[in-house]
Structure formats: C-alpha cells, structure tokens
C-alpha cells in the first residue's frame, strides 16, 4: 500500500552539458514524509541532480531518462507548467542565505510572492499567510524588515518560509546549513525535520557533511563523479557499507591521527589582556563613534612545540586575533610578545620576530597571487631574512617535497593546482623560513573530507619531524580535538573556557562550550555500533 507510488522517482537519468557528462544513470526514490540525503564530495554532481528535478538547469544542459514527481514527468513538462509546479508542488532552499534573498524587497513581500504567483487571492490574505509562515519557521521579526537587517540563520528561515508557504509535496534543500554556524545549523535542521513531519513533505537534502546525513536522513544516496555508488536506508548503510568509496568517505570523516606526544617547552607566545576595538558607524552625525569590541581582555600563552586549538563561531573575533597575533594590527590594550619581544612594532616590522611565525589561510583560492609562479609564491617570506639564501632553488624544491609535491611544481602557476594542493603550497610557504609558530586559520575548512584528512596527516607528519608550535583556529570541533594538546573556546571577543583538549571536550565547564558540543552533529562512532 505504502510503496505503490513514490513521491519522486528518478530512473536512469543522465545529464550532459556541452561535451561534459555531469550525471550518469541516476536512480533514486523518495516517499512522502521521508528524508533522503544525497551526499558526496564537490564535483560529484549532487547539486545538478537537484536542479534537474526543479527543471532549473543551466542552458545547454541535455537530460535523458525520467523524473516522475507525484505523477508528473518533469523532463517532458513544458516550462509554463514547470513554473506552476515550482513553489507549489516542489520547492527548493539554497546554500547561501546571504545572497538568496532580493536585497531591495522586504521579507514579507518575498514570502507572499510565492502565494500570489500561484493563487488568485487578495494581497492582504497572502501577506497574512506569509506572516504566519514566518512565525512558524521561528522568525520573530516584523515582515516589513529587509534581508540585510537579518542574520544568516534568520535569512535561511525566510528562504525556508518562502519555499514551504504553499505546503509543497517535495522540498529540496541544497547544502542548507553549510554556510551557517554549528548552533544555527542544529536549529535549522530541527526545523526542517519538524516541517517534514508536520506537512508530510518529502525532503531531499544535499550535503557533504556526513554527520548531518547520518543524523537526519531516513535514506542515504552516495554519489561520486556523477554516479550513484551506493543507496540504502540510513541504519543499513551505516551498518554495512558496500562500496569502497562510501567507506573511504566515512573513514575520512572519522579520521584519527596520532599526534606526537607534547613534551613541554619554554614559553613562546605571551598574550596578556589584549583589547582590540573597532569604531562602528556613528549613531548621530556628530556624536562619538561607538566602539565594537572584537577582542575583550584576552590572555593566553603558547609554549614552544605546543599545539593549541581555538574554537568559536563566526564573528567571535578569531580573525582579529590572527591579525593581532601576527603583528599586522595594533591593540588598544595589553601586550603580546613572541620569545619576549613585542609582535607589533609600528610601521616598521621587526623582522626577527616576524620570521618566527607564519600563517596558512582558509581559502586556497585567494591565498596566492594568480600572476606569480609557485617558486616566487613560496619564497615570499624570505623577504623577512637579512640575507637571501644562497641556494634558493634547492630550498624551494625541498620545501615542495616536504609537503608532498614535486620540485617541478615550482615552475607552474597556481591555477594549475587543486584546492588540496594549494593548501600544501600554503604550508610550504609558511615553513620556508622555518618558523617556531604557524597559525592555521580555518586551514582545512574549505576542503572536501578526504582532502582534509590528507592535509591533517601532513600537519601531524610535519610536527613529528620537528617540534612545531601552532595555533589551530577552526569552527570544526572534531578536527580541533584531533590535532591539538590544548584548546581555547572563544565567544564574542572573550575566551570563555580553556584547558587540555580532552578535558574540555569530555567535561566542558562553560555553558557555551556545552551548547557548542551538543550542537555539533557527530557520526556514530564506528561501523560496529
């Protein structure tokens, strides 16, 4: 009775754009009230699969096969009729809430528009329903507000309200929480789950985050390079992974490393009561500028060879701390020293201090000048030395080989490398002056799980070769737990908790740390479980 007619059935669907094969022989089914997760790494074609269901593929896309949605064959439906289905029978929520809303229309209008497009009803009634729906998705702001006045999580709620205001039978969510903080992510996921049960909707969620998948979905589809490699109900799949790629993916997410034991060392960084304010816009025209306190009385130390983690959500002051620590910005109060010498020395940087620390950034695509060759890119920190090395080519070759690249890569341009390779180059650049401290600023956050595991291995490997102190800044609790000896938890410019990593994770003391740990989705520990 139940399985007679699935809500959505995709049979043998293939998709090509130009000469490129994007999807091949996709098969999947989704029942009413069920949550189906499609997962896979970037480039696996999971978003394209979602867009083909909506009929919103880019120009030049050619689809074959069949997509049956509630008795309608999507691929043969005319554009006019697809428009009637979109927003009404099927809806979609996208990844980036910051840009998904029209900045010049208020949120009430944007939600009401979905109703007005599909129904002949009065504007007043539509707005009433829009307001109710905004409240239902947990948004307690007036519908006359504009998107720029809302936070990322609030905007995502508006997008969801817009998608479900007509009670669609199918909701597609493409990485709906990837751009959000963990605590916000947890709330949005709970909301989606509730809505599915309440409206008996089918939810197709696309995400790279296996922890989210395992937590939320009834059924999991794993994709790799445009193909479905495995599809099973969640408990079954977790218990018994058939395809090696699925296993590799889950293993990478649970990746554990053997950090060499930290033996203790002399003090390297000493930061005491740092305060960093930024002026925010004036409230009145000639009034004083109110101050926004990015770092509020922060104190910590890092010893030689010690690996310290820093955890916090967006806007907590992590990036400011990086810049202040690197001596790129002055502070309004407190002192920071490295081996006893101040890191900030006004306009003229103190090279002796600077060459003791380097940094690796999050975004492998913006970390390099696209117009320089790798050799020039990684040797840039030599600017800090009093004398350029006599054997630059050998040193560059060694630096590249140390991070698992080839010496020949020195002559290539950065766009020839993948994201993971770029992060290796960034690490090579950081290591070339043999610093005592490296700051990893969300250095693995933008990478796919398997690549992330490799980079983490590389970091651990490097610290086995020689004692290297680092500050590992991340919002990803699992990774931080893995690669650090000690951890600092930061919230709104303050360090709310610190201590040895295992202690903080096992027995968090501060309520914020507890919230953070509870919100972070976790994979069931092992396959046997």
């Amino acid at each position: 009775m139940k399985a007679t007619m699935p809500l959505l059935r995709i049979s043998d669907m293939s998709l090509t754009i130009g000469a490129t094969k994007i999807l091949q022989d996709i098969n999947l089914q989704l029942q009413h009230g069920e949550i189906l997760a499609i997962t896979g790494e970037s480039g696996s074609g999971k978003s394209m699969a979602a867009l083909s269901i909506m009929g919103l593929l880019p120009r030049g896309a050619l689809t074959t096969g069949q997509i049956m949605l509630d008795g309608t064959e999507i691929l043969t439906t005319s554009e006019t009729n697809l428009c009637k289905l979109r927003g009404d029978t099927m809806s979609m929520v996208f990844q980036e809430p910051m840009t998904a809303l029209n900045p010049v229309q208020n949120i009430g209008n944007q939600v009401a528009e979905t109703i007005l497009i599909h129904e002949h009803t009065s504007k007043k009634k539509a707005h009433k329903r829009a307001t109710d729906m905004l409240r239902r998705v947990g948004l307690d702001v007036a519908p006359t507000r504009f998107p720029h006045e809302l936070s990322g999580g609030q905007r995502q709620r508006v997008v969801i309200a817009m998608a479900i205001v007509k009670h669609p039978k199918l909701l597609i969510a493409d990485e709906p929480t990837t751009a959000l903080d963990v605590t916000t992510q947890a709330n949005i996921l709970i909301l989606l789950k509730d809505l599915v049960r309440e409206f008996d909707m089918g939810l197709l969620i696309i995400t790279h985050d296996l922890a989210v998948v395992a937590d939320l979905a009834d059924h999991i589809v794993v994709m790799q390079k445009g193909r479905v490699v495995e599809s099973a109900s969640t408990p079954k799949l977790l218990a018994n992974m058939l395809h090696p790629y699925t296993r590799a993916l889950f293993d990478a997410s649970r990746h554990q490393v053997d950090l060499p034991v930290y033996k203790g060392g002399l003090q390297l960084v000493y930061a005491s009561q740092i305060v960093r304010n930024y002026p925010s816009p004036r409230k009145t025209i000639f009034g004083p500028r109110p101050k926004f306190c990015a770092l509020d009385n922060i104190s910590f130390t890092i010893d030689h060879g010690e690996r310290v983690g820093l955890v916090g959500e967006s806007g907590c002051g992590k990036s400011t701390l990086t810049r202040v620590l690197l001596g790129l910005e002055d502070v309004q109060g407190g002192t920071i020293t490295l081996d006893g010498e101040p890191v900030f020395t006004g306009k003229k940087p103190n090279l002796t201090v600077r060459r003791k620390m380097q940094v690796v950034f999050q975004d492998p695509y913006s970390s390099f000048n696209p117009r320089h060759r790798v050799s020039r890119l990684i040797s840039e920190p030599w600017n800090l030395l009093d004398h350029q090395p006599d054997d630059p080519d050998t040193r560059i070759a060694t630096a590249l080989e140390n991070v698992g690249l080839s010496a020949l890569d020195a002559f290539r341009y950065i766009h020839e490398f993948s994201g993971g390779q770029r992060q290796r180059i960034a690490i090579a650049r950081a290591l070339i002056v043999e610093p005592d401290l490296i700051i990893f600023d969300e250095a693995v956050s933008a990478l796919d799980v398997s690549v992330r595991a490799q980079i983490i291995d590389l970091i651990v490997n490097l610290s086995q070769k020689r004692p290297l102190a680092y500050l590992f800044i991340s919002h990803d609790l699992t990774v931080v737990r893995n690669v650090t000896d000690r951890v600092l938890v930061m919230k709104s410019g303050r360090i709310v908790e610190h201590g040895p990593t295992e202690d903080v994770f096992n027995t968090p003391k501060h309520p914020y740390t507890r919230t953070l740990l509870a919100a972070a989705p976790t994979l069931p520990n092992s396959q046997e479980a």
Partner: protein
Amino acid sequence: MIRYIASRLLSLTLSLIAASIVIFAVIEIIPGDPASFMLGVGVRPDTLEALRDQMGLNDPLAMRYFSWVTGMLTGDFGISWTYKIPVSELVDDRIWVSLPLAIYALFLSTIIAFPAGIIAASHRGGMGDVSIMGATQFGVAIPNFWFAMILVLIFAIKLPWFSAGGFPGWDDPLLALKSLTLPAIALALPQAAILARVMRSSLLDNLGEDYIRTARAKGLTHRQALWRHGVRNAMIPVLTIIGLQFSFLLAGGIIIEQIFFLPGLGRLIFQAISARDLIVVESVVMLLVFVVILVNFAVDLAYAAVDPRLRSCE
C-alpha cells in the same frame, strides 16, 4: 534615512564650496587683465586704474571671492563687462533653452534605452539582443555634433520637416518643442546607446544573482523574475549613468546649440570667452556645475529610494 539625506546634503554643500573655489582660482590665474581688455590698447593708466577699482579688481583675493559667492547666493551674479547688463538677466534668457534641451534629451534617451536594454537582456544572445547591441556599438561611436549635421541634412534640408535652426521662444510651447526636437535627438541617441548597454549588462549581472534563482524556484517565469527582481536591482548603476549623462547633455548641448543656432548658454559662453567677459564665464560655469551637483544629489536620493540598505546603514 534622515541621516543619509543629511550626509548627502553635507557633501552637496562641500562640493559646491570646493567647486566655487576651483572656478574662482582658474579665472584668477588666467593671463590678461579684463579691464585693459575692455578698454582696448593705448588706454591711459589712470583710466585703467579707475576701471580696475570700479570692477573691484584691486580688492584682496579673499574679499573678491567672498563677494562673488554672497552675490550669487542672493541672485546677483554681477554685471557683464561686455553686455553691460546683469549676468542674471543674460542667464535667465538662455537657461530656458539649455535646460529644457538637456531634459528633453535625457527623456528621449531614457525612453529609448530602457526598453532596448531590457529586451536585449531578456533575449540574451538572440536576434533582438544582437541587433540592439550592434546598433548601440554604432550609437556610442557617433559624435553627436556630426549626427546633428546629418539630421539637419536629412530632416531640414532634404525633407523640410523641421527648421534647420533658431528658436522661436516659449510663447508657443509646441513650436518651441518642435525646434528643440532635432537637437534633442542628436544629443539623445548616442547617450541612449550608452544607457542601453549599461541597462543590459546591469540586468544580466542581476540575472546571475542567487535571488533570481530563488525567485525561479518559487515558480516565477523567466520574464516575471526579470521584471520583479531584476529591473529594480539593476537600477543602481543605471541611475549613476543617468546622473553623469545629464552633465554630458548639458555640456554637449553647448556644441549642439551652435549647430542649430539656439540662443542658449552654449552660445553665451562662447561669446563670453572670446570677449574675455570672465564674469559671465565664471557665472555660467558655476551655474552648470551647480545643476550637475544638484542632479547628483537627486541621484543619491534615488539610490536610497531603490535600495533599502542605504536607508538604514551609512
């Protein structure tokens, strides 16, 4: 919102002050003494000195600047050295040719460019797009004074539909408008080509935005998404260009007025320059700059009307 207007007003005032200083300074450093220019060669030194006194040329610089500015604020632009009548009267006659011409041209340019830009963007790559964009490439390349000459040749000489020049005054508004039509078209078409291109590219930029995709996912057709979510967002760069164009049209009008023998500010300024009638030059330039700055202020206000982000922050 009030803060935004206040800050714009402040910058309006500052721009005006800065502009007036620049104009005053430029006129000051010009070689040649207007008094001796007026009296011609072979004049007696004491006569010259008397005239210099009368014209206020012997006063200190700051005082001359100050009296010039306060004069303008009260509508007193001084007395033309060649015409011997108040500059305000000279200007008053002529601005009612130049300003309507610029507005007329802006109007024509906008009503041509908007549909053209929107059609081109919504049929991207299609026949309509290709032909509109081809036409605008030519439009951008045509010098307006040459275009004016061609228009005269065709519509006034070969086909006697319009008069080749002159202005009958505003007693008969229809006739006046008719005599401004050819000059306005000559001014407007090249500008319309630019505006259409900006409109198109701005719309296309917007069509690539995430919120257009969101709108499509809601069930809006391509056309609905374009009209409801594209056009208004695309207006910001378009408004900027419209503001800039107004100043182009006012200035371009100066040359076009020559071709059509229109008694506007353009003719006045040319006559004044050749007669070294600097007070007229100074006043007309200041007036033009004033209008342009005022238009930019209006554009800033229009931004705020279009974009709620400007209303709340800043």
